[in-house]
């Protein structure tokens, strides 16, 4: 059982909405998603994809949980500008997708954030029951592109 360091706890710390475009986001990934020294697109999922903020904690916190469930996993990093943030992405000539990082602190993971996706300004999420708005022809391209720019910071343990 791992211990969560006190500085990783949210406690009374504030949510910080501003993201610098150069800030790194850390995404943990399963060893199955290790591909030729990089990370495969299957590691990236929408909507509300979790990632830890580099400005608010260690890269190792992305795989640190009390139950050690992710100790063999890897961690890949990408920059906020690579989501991309604040750019309208046209799909099929008339659908506009946009992305935005959101700081969503968890009680035992202060740096936790999510990549939110919008279709024509409508937030797509499980709670909104509108994940059907995520067209695979769009998200598969987006995830493949993200896998191409992401850098592996922590390699997974391979058996």
């Amino acid at each position, binding site marked *: 059982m791992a211990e969560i360091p006190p500085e990783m706890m949210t406690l009374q710390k504030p949510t910080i909405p501003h993201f610098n475009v150069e800030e790194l986001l850390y995404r943990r990934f399963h060893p199955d998603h290790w591909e030729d020294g990089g990370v495969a*697109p*299957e590691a990236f*999922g929408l909507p509300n994809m*979790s990632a830890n903020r580099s400005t608010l904690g260690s890269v190792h916190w992305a795989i640190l949980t009390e139950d050690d469930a992710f100790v063999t996993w890897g961690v890949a990093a990408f920059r906020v500008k690579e989501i991309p943030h604040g750019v309208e992405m046209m799909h099929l000539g008339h659908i506009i997708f946009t992305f935005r990082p959101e700081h969503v602190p968890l009680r035992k993971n202060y740096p936790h954030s999510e990549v939110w996706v919008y279709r024509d300004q409508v937030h797509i999420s499980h709670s909104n029951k509108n994940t059907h708005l995520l067209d695979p*022809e769009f998200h598969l*391209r987006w995830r493949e592109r993200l896998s191409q720019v992401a850098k592996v910071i922590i390699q997974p343990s391979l058996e």
Partner: protein
Amino acid sequence: MSGKKTADVPVGTTTPSNDHLPATAPWGRWLAKLQALSQLAPKWNGDDSPPPVDIAVRNASVFLTALRDADLEPTRLAASAMGGIAVTRKVGNHKALVECYNDGRVYFLFSDRASGAMDVKPLALDREALLTFIASMQEFLNG
């Protein structure tokens, strides 16, 4: 390669079985992997990603069977954070990925990592469409 969901395609069993893939090396390894993926628990990646459901496992099994019949092994088989199963075959910088989603849809990606070029389309899993797809996949991977 229509955009039709594959849930109504008669493909046999609802779980990976020896009807689709023999439990002999090397294909037995992929069958065992597919069975392991079908047992993933909710929150398997710590997020809201659902584990693969029966239709995704069944469709992945159908595609793996088509690969086996063409004597083309995948290079990776993995759960997808989108919910479903991904089958990848990669040759150098050229990658073909087939993603079988939990809603029954199946899409393929051809990606050239050298040029950045990509092609994404829906994939039907009837025999004729699979034969056509595998021929185009081979052409892309070896091109």
